[in-house]
């Protein structure tokens, strides 16, 4: 379908009451307006206010409307763009988005392919089970994952590493007793240094953010990809088999083309969500260690609420909003991808 997203979703508007009822615009307006007004007063108005603040030297909440702030033009933006912290934050945000989206797509496709495979029995129940995390409150899942990544000696992941160490030592010990003429110790590079302080290093924390975000988002990806996979006609696979295509060839030439559009669409949405990720870094270690992993929203939030730099913070948030606007523009431009999701 080559119609635009916009046209398609306004198609429903054709199905409406006859003309004589449609002239009373004022009633419709009266019905829609309260919702729009409430939404805009908590959304559009603060955004306008944010833009205004970004041109002032407001520092703490008292100066924001107390008259203590004065307009200083683009000074906030100038100091922002010359601040290494800002570029670090922006870089980490983009890196996080790239790594996380890639991981989400790969994991999503892998799970979906396994759970639709003909060789797997009971796959319907498994599919019902794996999307359960979708129903958990975000703060629940994130705090649980923070527990899993506990740096305590008996934190769950550290315990698993200890078990792994134990297994490696046992295997090496067995080899050692068989080869009685040699004395062999478990090689250092195979053993993990337990306990690992997951949040203590920059890339440790970064990796734990990515892992957690993938776990939060995979049910969404799996639902979309599974429904796309189920739309691939079996005859295509059979025809490819008859022509002698192996599994990987069939995956590349039959499966992938069929799920490309829905996956692209889901990627745009999930990329926007990753770019705006806030809760995971905030709950894990507030974008630490030091300020290494402050994703853009964490950075802006912290400058205002904790460090009382409202003017600077507003400039950060406005910059972030420009990027979010860009995602919206992409979603509109590529919107015709949506029909792979909706029309089953």
């Amino acid at each position, binding site marked *: 379908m080559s119609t635009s997203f916009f046209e398609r979703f306004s198609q429903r508007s054709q199905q409406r009451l006859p003309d004589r009822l449609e002239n009373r615009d004022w009633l419709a307006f009266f019905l*829609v307006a309260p919702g729009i007004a409430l939404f805009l007063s*908590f959304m559009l108005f603060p955004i306008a206010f944010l833009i205004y603040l970004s041109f002032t030297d407001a520092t703490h909440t008292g100066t924001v409307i107390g008259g203590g702030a004065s307009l200083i033009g683009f000074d906030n933006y100038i100091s922002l763009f010359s601040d290494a912290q800002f570029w670090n934050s922006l870089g980490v945000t983009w890196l996080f988005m790239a790594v996380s989206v890639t991981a989400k797509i790969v994991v999503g496709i892998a799970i979906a392919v396994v759970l639709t495979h003909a060789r797997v029995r009971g796959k319907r129940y498994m599919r019902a089970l794996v999307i359960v995390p979708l129903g958990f409150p975000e703060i629940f899942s994130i705090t649980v994952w923070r527990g899993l990544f506990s740096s305590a000696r008996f934190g769950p992941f550290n315990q698993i590493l200890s078990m792994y160490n134990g297994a490696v030592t046992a295997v090496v010990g067995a080899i050692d007793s068989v080869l009685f003429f040699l004395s062999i110790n478990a090689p250092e590079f195979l053993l993990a240094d337990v306990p690992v302080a997951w949040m203590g290093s920059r890339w440790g924390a970064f990796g734990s953010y990515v892992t957690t975000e993938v776990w939060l988002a995979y049910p969404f990806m799996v639902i979309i990809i599974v429904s796309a996979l189920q739309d691939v006609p079996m005859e295509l696979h059979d025809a490819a088999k008859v022509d002698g295509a192996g599994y990987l060839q069939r995956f590349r030439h039959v499966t992938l083309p069929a799920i490309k559009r829905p996956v692209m669409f889901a990627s745009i949405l999930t990329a926007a969500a990753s770019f705006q990720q806030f809760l995971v870094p905030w709950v894990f270690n507030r974008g630490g260690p030091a300020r290494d992993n402050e994703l853009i929203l964490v950075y802006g939030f912290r400058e205002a609420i904790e460090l009382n730099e409202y003017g600077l913070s507003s400039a950060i948030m406005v910059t972030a909003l420009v990027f979010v606007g860009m995602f919206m523009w992409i979603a509109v431009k590529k919107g015709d991808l949506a029909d792979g999701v909706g029309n089953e």
Partner: protein
Amino acid sequence: MIDTVRKTIEQVQTGRRSLSDVGKTIAGSTGATLLVLLLMFPVYWIVTASFSQGAGLMSSEGLFADPSTYNLDAYRWVLFESNFVFEDGEVGKPGALFNSLIVVFVTVSVSLSVIIPGAYALSRRKFAGREKVLYGYVLFTQVGAGLSIATLVALYALFVNLGLSNNLLVLGLFYAAGAIPFNTWLLKTFMDNIPVSYEEAAIVDGASQWQVIREVILPLAKPGIAVVLIFTFLAGWNEFIIAQTLLQPENYTLSVELYALVDDYETPWTEFAAFAILFALPVAIIYFAAQNYVESGLSFGGMEG
């Protein structure tokens, strides 16, 4: 299950299925089961932890504790000693649960009272800017999740200055505003599926506009309204960061208390786990009940135009 096994054995014996074919199926199914177990590990961990108060969770057997040591002590602590129901478990001092319910009540009542009329108008009436409103709502729903954090910075300053920051009613209103786009869109799509012919029949019979809305649209839209009610309930119940920023400890909602537990290194995991489960499990069940409703009427994500 046993039937399938018996049938398979018979098929192999009579030579209708080769042994390697059965082997592949078993290998595939086992692999898939392992994958599912791996994905569900966090859920397994939080559930066992919640039952392991006083048992050796923080020891080498902790992850796979002996089920015979399971107990409900952690749940007892959450219900009678933590801030979950009453502050510090003292009967009479309303705790986080009450704060959450106040917020949720405001969110649900305010948002339903603007969503239902809005959805009706968007579904059944033609007016200038209709498509633009819908378009804006969908865009915000799909792409704008982080906007509320960006705007929180500006709103927080305003609320503090107006003395509204530590106010559960304002918080509920904030959530209601955020819930409008998605839920209006959802209910509008639901109403689109109600055949126009019912209304036409009612008009032919002499019903007034108001009667058509009250006696045709609203009763037929009930399942959709129920779903919207659940989603707005969840919006108020689940949200964390805005509540944490705006509220003082005496007004903490359940989500903020949950975070306070995990942020405090003194809290045993068992108690945190029981708190988390009591916070999340009821709403997860409600969510899936609603999700089934949604999927029967619409496709996933409300994307169907």
